[in-house]
């Protein structure tokens, strides 16, 4: 994006947000849970029953039926798409977008998940492998399995007429989705983008981290003690589920329809830590942060708060902390919300961006839950351990993923806000 002069870019604003999180359905539930410093992590009996799986904790979003949605749209949606639809419904309502706005070829969807529905995949293969037959496979199975199931289902359900993009970047998916949506609007290719990410809980997801020795083995007697981002006693990820959706819109389009402006998106960058598929790298993290600041035209000192990716893994938190320190030293407050929420995977950057927007609005920084004994290996950043009041004009949201992907967003408070 730095190749496109800032003066030539359309200004991009956030006009609506919607959330399904382990705190429940709705942005209100997410914000209330975070503001109260609660944990959404519980013992998950489904995980406890899996032989060899050492993590028995998860953050689950509760029942998801979406009965307001016509059956023709629901029938092709797995749990992850239902959560995304619920979040998108809230965000679209919040933004005050009409069906006519959505039908425009200049309105699009950019949303994804880590993979197509694992629940649907399991159902397919359970049937297929037991019977060696496809006779009982439903016609809708493929629409849940396909990689772009989230964006395609959202576009169908809400009648969105423009570009339908489905980035897949594991845990950085929604940062990537918001970033690509931002770029589409900034480049005048779209006026409105419904963007974000979603993931549904399945034992396979937790197993992936456990196999890499990166899932928490915290005792079920104390589920809210994990995960522990940046803490010396952290022992890994707790997988959660949810969906976070933001409505991005060109400022001009938002002004024309008198839409509420919650925040601005002013920068995005993505890169790859080429050395390893499984390990993040502080230098690549720092490079990606600098690139996002360059796009935004900001200096490190302009950022008043960094919302870290930090999931509670030994290696990942340390590399991220060192990368942040390389750019900001100890001058900028840092916290992670994974201690409250667990790792909502493809939804995480969107949900945490929504929370960051609310922190900007309230002038408050929520601390990292479960950070009690700071690990010096995470760098000497200004880690927030108690709620702090602060005037925040710009927030940097850092995100990274298995596969070496980094994605960084820079969000700003509305200029007249």
């Amino acid at each position, binding site marked *: 994006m730095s190749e496109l002069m800032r003066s030539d870019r359309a200004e991009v604003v956030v006009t609506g947000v919607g959330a399904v999180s382990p705190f429940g359905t709705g942005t209100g539930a997410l914000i209330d849970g975070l503001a109260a410093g609660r944990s959404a992590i519980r013992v998950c009996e489904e995980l406890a029953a899996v032989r060899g799986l050492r993590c028995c904790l998860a953050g689950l979003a509760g029942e998801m039926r979406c009965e307001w949605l016509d*059956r*023709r749209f629901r*029938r092709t949606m797995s749990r992850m798409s239902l959560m995304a639809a619920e979040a998108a419904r809230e965000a679209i309502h919040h933004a005050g977008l009409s069906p006519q706005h959505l039908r425009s070829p200049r309105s699009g969807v950019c949303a994804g998940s880590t993979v197509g529905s694992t629940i649907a995949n399991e159902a397919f293969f359970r049937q297929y492998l037991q019977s060696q037959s496809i*006779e*009982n*496979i*439903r*016609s*809708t199975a493929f629409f849940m399995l396909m990689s772009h199931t989230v964006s395609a289902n959202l576009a169908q359900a809400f009648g969105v007429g423009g570009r339908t993009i489905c980035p897949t970047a594991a845990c950085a998916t929604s940062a990537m989705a918001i970033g690509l949506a931002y770029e589409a609007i900034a480049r005048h290719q779209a006026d409105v983008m419904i963007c974000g990410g979603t993931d549904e809980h399945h034992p396979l997801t937790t197993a992936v981290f456990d196999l890499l020795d990166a899932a928490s083995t915290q005792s079920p007697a104390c589920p809210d003690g994990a995960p522990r981002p940046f803490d010396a006693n952290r022992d890994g990820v707790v997988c959660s589920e949810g969906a976070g959706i933001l409505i991005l819109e060109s400022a001009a389009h938002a002004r024309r329809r008198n839409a509420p402006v919650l925040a601005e998106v002013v920068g995005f960058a993505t890169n790859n830590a080429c050395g390893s598929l499984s390990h993040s790298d502080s230098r690549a993290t720092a490079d990606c942060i600098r690139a996002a600041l360059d796009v935004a035209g900001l200096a490190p000192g302009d950022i008043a708060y960094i919302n870290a990716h930090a999931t509670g893994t030994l290696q990942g938190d340390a590399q991220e902390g060192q990368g942040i320190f390389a750019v900001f030293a100890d001058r900028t407050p840092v916290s992670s919300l994974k201690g409250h929420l667990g790792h909502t995977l493809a939804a995480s950057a969107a949900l945490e961006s929504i929370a960051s927007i609310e922190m900007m609005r309230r002038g408050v920084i929520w601390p990292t839950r479960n950070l009690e004994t700071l690990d010096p290996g995470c760098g000497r950043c200004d880690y927030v351990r108690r709620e702090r009041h602060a005037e925040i004009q710009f927030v940097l949201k850092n995100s990274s993923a298995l596969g070496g992907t980094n994605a960084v967003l820079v969000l700003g408070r509305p200029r007249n806000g």
Partner: protein
Amino acid sequence: MDERVVFDAIVDALVEEFELDRARMTSDAHLIETLGLDSLDFVDMVVVLQNRFGVSIRDEPRARQVRTLGDLHALVMDIRANGPGRPADFDGRAGDGLGSQTDGRRE
């Protein structure tokens, strides 16, 4: 299983599968125009009915002529009584019934 029981069983299965209004489940109800089903639903309807009645419908040529709930009922009754695939009953017309693709399905 007599005719009425089979009809009621079909209605029960379709109401549950497709969230249909039971009051509209009359013999002359058109599967597409009245009940709002489409080609994806037809695939799933076959699965549901095959499981419910233990019969094979998927490759049944007469399914192409099914338009109404009554037609569906008659087909299930006939397959139950006489077995699948009676070519003499199939007149070869292209139909918009089960198994046809009339809603512009994409690949």
